[in-house]
Each structure stands twice: as C-alpha cells, then as structure tokens.
C-alpha cells in the first residue's frame, strides 16, 4: 500500500511537472491580497458610535442563537471607514427588553483578536427574540482619540432546532442556573470535546460564571438504548467553562444526560440533557 501510494505520488508528481512546465506561461499571477478574515464570518449589523468617532460592525460565526455565541466587534474610524482600529477597548452589555422587565445575560468581555483585528467576546443569549427585543449595548473607548461612546445595535436571536441552553433552579440555593453547550458544534463519530458554560442569575443585571461545581455526563442513544464508553466528565477551566469529552459510537440522535453537584457533592440538579443529532 505504502509502495502503491509512493508510486502513485511519484506518478502524479511527474504528471504535475509535465503539465506545469507546459502551462507555465498561462499561469495567472498569484493573488497576493490576503482575504479579510472577517469575510469568513456572518455580518450581523453595524452602528456608528458618535462619541468615540467610530463605527462598530458586529460579526458572528453564525446567525445569533440562544446559547454560546462568539461575537466579533470590528471598530472602524468614522473619518476613514477603511481603517480598522485596534487600539481601543470595548465593554458589552446585551439587554433583553420584555416590556415588563429587562435583563442582560452571561457574557465574556471582548478582547482583541489577532486574526481578525476585531474584539472578540461571547454573549450567552438565554432566550430568543420572540420573547422580546435584544439589543447589544457596547461602550467603546477609542484610545486613539481618548473618546468614548455607546454603541447600540438591535439583534435577532433565534432558537436552534436542538437547544443549546438549559436552565434550572438549584436544589441547593434556589439560584437560577444556565448551562450552555459550547462544544460539540459539529459533532462527529468517536470522541468529541464536550464543553459547557455554566452561569448563575444573581440579578437581572448580573449573570456570573459558576466555577466550582461537579458535572457528570452520560450519553445515550434512545432509539437503541445504549450509551458509550470513554466519556470524560467536564471539569472547570476558566470563566465558567467546563471541558470534557463525549463519545458518539455511531451517528444519529443522541441525548447527553447531565447531573450537577456542588463541590461537596450536594445535588444541584439531575436529569438534565442536551440533544445532539448528526
């Protein structure tokens, strides 16, 4: 096999050389302009931040959904919209207006991302836009001109077919807990990272990360009645993010059952689950 492959490769290489030498003159000049990494993302919207003299464009990896969203805030100079500003600071507060009340949701504050030159953060939307109006509020400090302003951008958040977020009330302290599935987003056969974000509602305006609980997971294929071996329970890393591993031994519809315990193993909640189909 190896030999075959080598033969094949040498053959292909030989062919490639012959062809390339024949076509040398026809080769178009190589495109040397690098693609804008932001073009790989989904454009959500933009707004000008008058106070800071900037325009903020919001990108995401996909349409905004209930769950753990990576957000990219690209800041441009209002006077020179082609100029991306990296010497800046941004602080976000997503807000949900439900009429009777307003609340925010868990976030990870944006930091400069070397690849996109945008400010990359996270917003864990805890309900879809059908429940009210989501607005992304962001305080922008433009260090270049030492000015500050507030960006405000209406958002549309959808619920995915398979829920990315669950919530329950802690049996220990009656706090409302939100758990979002961060990985896997593109599940595949075999071992997958299983990453959760866990947050707690302290008030309408405060959803801090929960960093000290124990989580146990048990995947299950309901139609076949079997689970899978070699799963790894998620453990806390930072910012309320718990990393483990889930094993999908075949494709299809899986349920990952989850139980949550305090550090001293008091039950916070059992019998929770995410559905994962691939």
């Amino acid at each position, binding site marked *: 096999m*190896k030999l075959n492959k080598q033969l094949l490769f040498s053959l292909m290489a030989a062919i490639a050389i012959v062809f390339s030498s024949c076509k040398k003159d026809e080769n178009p000049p190589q495109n040397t302009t690098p693609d804008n990494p932001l073009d790989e993302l989904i454009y959500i919207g933009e707004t000008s931040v008058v106070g800071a003299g900037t325009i903020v464009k919001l990108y995401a990896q996909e349409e905004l959904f209930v769950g753990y969203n990576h957000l990219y805030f690209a800041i441009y100079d209002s006077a020179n919209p082609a100029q991306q500003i990296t010497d800046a600071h941004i602080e976000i507060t997503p807000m949900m207006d439900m009429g009777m009340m307003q609340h925010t949701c868990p976030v990870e504050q944006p930091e400069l991302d070397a690849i996109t030159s945008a400010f990359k953060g996270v917003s864990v939307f805890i309900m879809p836009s059908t429940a009210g109006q989501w607005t992304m509020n962001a305080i922008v400090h433009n260090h270049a001109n030492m000015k500050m302003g507030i960006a405000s951008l209406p958002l549309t958040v959808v619920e995915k077919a398979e829920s990315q977020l669950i919530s329950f009330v802690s049996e220990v302290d009656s706090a409302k807990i939100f758990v979002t599935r961060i990985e896997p987003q593109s599940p595949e056969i*075999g*071992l997958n990272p299983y990453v959760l974000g866990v947050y707690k509602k302290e008030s309408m305006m405060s959803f801090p990360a929960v960093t000290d609980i124990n989580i146990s997971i048990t995947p299950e294929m309901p139609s076949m009645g*079997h689970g899978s071996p070699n799963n790894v329970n998620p453990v806390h890393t930072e910012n309320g993010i718990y990393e483990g591993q889930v094993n999908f031994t075949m*494709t*299809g519809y899986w349920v990952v059952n989850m139980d949550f315990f305090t550090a001293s193993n008091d039950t916070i909640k059992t019998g929770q689950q995410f559905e994962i189909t691939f």
Partner: protein
Amino acid sequence: MKCRKHITLLLGVLLCSQLFGQSSLQDTVHLQEFDIVHSKRVSLNTATSPKRIDETLTKITGVTLIKRGNYAAEPVFRGLNGGQMSLTIDGMRIFSACTDKMDPVSSYVASNNLASIEISGNDNAASMGSSIGGAINFNTKQPQVNAPEKFSGNFNQSYNSNANGLNSNLAFILSDSNWAIGINSNYQNFQNYTAGGGKKIQYTQFEKVNIAINTTFMLSAKETLKAQFIYDDAHNVGYAALPMDVSFAGGRIYALSYKRYLTNGSLTLKAYGNNITHIMDDSKRPDVPIRMDMPGKSNTYGMFAQMEFHANKKHHLIITPDYYFNQSFADMTMYPNSADRPDEPTMYMITWPDVYRHSASVDFADHFQINDSNQLHINAKYEYVTSMVQSEFGKKQLHSLGFDATTPSTYHLTTASLKYLRTINHKINAYGSLGYAERQPTVSEGFGYYLFNSQDAFDYIGVPDLKKERAVKMELGLSAEIKSIYVNGSVFHYQFADYVLGIVNSDLDGMTIGSKGVKVYENLPSASISGIELTLKTSLFHEIELKNVSTYTYGIDNQGAPLPLIPPFRNVSQFRYRINKFALRADVILVASQNEFNAYAGEESTPSYGLLNVGASKQFSLLKQNASFGLSADNIFDSYYWDHMDWNSIPRPGISINAMFMMQF
C-alpha cells in the same frame, strides 16, 4: 453462504464422460481418502445424487458444520474455524463479506462444479494460503482438451420433499484438439424446511444460481492457458438463528492461469480476483425493535506462481510465491421508529472500516523420497501481512474505544512442518508429523466494531494490535489392511499460544438491542485441541461395502475450560450395496451429547442424536444415453435434533424424501 444444499455434482461429469461409466451410481460422493498422506484429497466423482456443498463437506472426516439456517454452513475442521482455516477455490484467496460469518467461502461454489476438495491439516502441505489450522481448497472441474467426445454434458434434477427444494444442474463441455470449454450451471430453490416432529422452521428458505465457466487453451504441447469465471448469486436467504436474513449474496470470481510443463516439473502462474457482496437486512422479519441494513463487501486480487521440480528421483520441490490484496468494508444503518421523533435521522456506523490487507508469502515444500519405504515431507512458509484502516470514520470509531488504527497492523508469519512417512510393509503405513504455524487476526478480530454475535448475544470489538495466534501441531497416523479390513487411524494435538478469543469487557455496554454486553478480542495465553479419527472399511462379496468413521475432538483453554465450537464424538456408518446397475445405501449417523460446552460463548449442552438415511438408485439407458434415477430418505425417523455447533439450537430438517434424475449426453 451460498452453496449449501444440493449442489449437484452434475458438472463433474464435465471432465470426461468416461468417468461416468465407471462411477457407480450408488455413492453420491465417493471419498478417496489418502489419509496416510495427511493432506486429504476428496475426489468428487460425478455422481448421481445431487448434493449441496454442505452435504459434500460433511463427507470429509474431521469436518463438521456450523449451521445458522439452511444455507452456507460454515465448515469446521477438527474444531478449527473461521480465521484458523484458510479456504480457497483453485488456490485463490477469497474472504467472506459478511461480518457475521454467514458466507463462508464454500458458499460461493456449487458442488457440481467441484472436482475435489483438498484438506491439509497440520502439515500445511499442498494447499495455498494455509493458516494455523490448515486449509481447505476447492478444486473446480477443468474441461479436458481433446476429449473423446467433442460435445458432452449432463443434466441433473433433484427434488427435496421437506423444503420443497429444487436443485437443478446443467453442464456442457465442448472439447477440441487444442481447447476446451466447460459450462456448469446450478440452480437451487428451497422453501422453509420442517424439523423433526413437524415444526416448520421459519427463515430457512433460499435461492441460488451458480454458473461456472472454465476454459483451457493449449498454447503449445507444453503450455496451457486457463480462464475461469464463477458467477454466484443467492437471494432471499433465511437465517433462522439470526435476527436478520440475507437478501443478496453474490460472488464474482475470475482468474487467468498459465502453465508450462518443463522437463523436470512445471511452472504455473495465476492472476485472479473476486468481488463478494453480501446484503444483510431484516426486511422480512415482522417484529424487530429496530430495522437495520448491514451490507458488506470483500474484494480480493492476487497472483501466485507455483514452481514444481523433480530435482532428482528423490526430491520433489514446490516453491510458491504468493501475493494478495483484500479490501473489506461493512457498515450498518439503523432506522429509528420512535413515534415521538418522526424526523429522527438514521443511525450509522462502520463495522469493517475499509481494511486494506496486503499479504506476500513464499512457500517451500519438498517431498523427499528417502527410499522405497521412507518419505519426508518438509514444508516452510514465510508470510508478511499488513493491514491498514482506510476509513477516517472507522479510525475515529476505534480511537474512541482507545485503539490506534492510524498505523498499519503488521505481522510476520512463519509456518513450518516436518512429516515422516514410513511404509512398514505393503499393507501397513505410518506417519508422524510435527508442525508450527502462526496466523494473523481476521478483519473482525483486528478491526471489527460492535459486531453482534447472535449465538452468545455479545457485540464483538476487534483490537488492531492483537498478537498473532501460534500453534504447535502434532499428529500420528497408521493405516493397515488386515485381511479384508482396512483400518486408518490418527491422533492429533494442537497446542496454541496467544489463542484469539472474545473476552467480556464489562466497561463497555452492548450496542445491539438485546445484546448482553461487549466482548473484546484478546490473546489467551494457551489453549489446546486434541482428537482422534478412526476409519474402518471392508468389502463383502464385491457388492457390499461397509465403512465406519469415528471422530472425537477435545479442546480446552488455558484454565482447562472447554473451548467453543468443539464437536462431540461422532460415528458414521455407511452401507453400500451395488449389483449390476442397481445400488442401495444406508447411512447411520450417531452423535454423542456434548457436555464439554463453553457457556461463555453462548453454548449449551447438546443432547445426542441418531439419524438413518437410506437411498436407492438405478442406472439405465435413455435415448441411448446413460441415465439414472434415485430415491432417498434422509432422517427417516424424523428426529428432532440439532448439532452442537448450530447457532441458537436451530433444529435441522426432519424427514425428507429426495428424488433425483440424472442423464448424461
């Protein structure tokens, strides 16, 4: 899988019609055993009663069958099975395409297309591709060039009352001065059979077509070129012992070979290929928890050269370099049926992860005639086998169980044997042999992924870095003719190391619904199989022949527990009476109970049973051609029985009346 029943031996006749005249009607399968030579060649004289391949195989001493339905029984030789035996057709390596062992290689031939079956036990002699337990090679019939009759053929039709089974054969040979072509066709169609006592056994039906074309060209006085093609299709095959059936099993086997006769020997070059497709599904089963499709395919391409020299009068050397490539792929799609989730997608996994296996070997054999009464057979073989998973999906599956399939699994296999034969006087011969053999794990043992075995109800997982299985094999034999009684006996002992067996892994849960858990293949430190075979034969008044064959096998693992798939004591008596053109036969088969069973492998103790089969046939002339008619009754007492190795104790057929008509032209 396929070929089980009644393969008619029609085409056998292909060879030459002369044989016909000589072969008597009475004996359906004439066993010529060169037992003393340890490797046996069973010649299948074209005979009158059409037999299916399974029935043919059971005529061979030491062979028993694992049945899962009424088709494609798996031959077991002295308690060795599966990857321990190498099964070939005309020296061609063929690998089953079914992950559940439902299509042994014997299922892709028809016994009417076979000239002989060669079995080599522990001396590894004679056959291509020997494995740890030896080899079974099916030799197909070759048309004779320049035969006395330019055109010949035969037709054979039989009917089985129990399963409403038809077995039809039609064969032609066209022979010219420098070429010949033989076409052999077989069609079998059997319904569900009825077990002893009258119980209809569902899912034992099958239908099969086998067409084999063999051509020979004389390129010169010393050179022949042969081309062969076997087309084999089985449809609607029931597997009563399994939760699934086979809607289609197909084999396409083709080869080209060149032979040159030299002054002191010959040179044969052969290139071949075969494509096996096996479609397992449960669409005929009314109640299944979940519907599944389990197709598999196995493609093999190979070539070998065989050089024979008579170095001098004392040495007969055979050197055989051999190469083959096999690709095995099987997957499984499951169709969920939950009312709560009508949109749930199908579930999918790969059970044989597209394994590419390359094998290169060279085999050396010397038959050394020391003097008139002493012979030495020396055999040595080295084989290099490497297997690589091609499917990324499959690699991830195995990785998720903790196995690394990203690098090839490679084995260096050495096989050697020495056999000493002594002619004590012209009536007494003796031999002793000592052999050492190794084998690589099968695709299932190395890479299988949750393969359900319905015998023990465990899912099996292969291990890519399993060690090779090894064995030391010893055998002693004696044959003697005392007055008119011919006695032939042998004792053998196989001592295994790193014996491959599935061991329960309680950390893993079964995947299949109804599965009891998971077994992972492991190497047992040791195991052994011993046995004894005894044949007695005598003739009375030239018209009566009596033969009695007893076999007993005993197998234990490293802890002294019985090995699975060990047949119990068996005694077969044959009575043959022949006068003029009339023949009578009666067979009594007595099989002891088996209480040395392996519960771990899902076995239970099996009660003893006895069978009586009788038959009669008459030869006559029809339209100036040889013809014959036969009637027989199998299991005449309608016993309800099953054999120890049959899966899930599925009973075998009760009484059946068979009628057969054969004509040659």
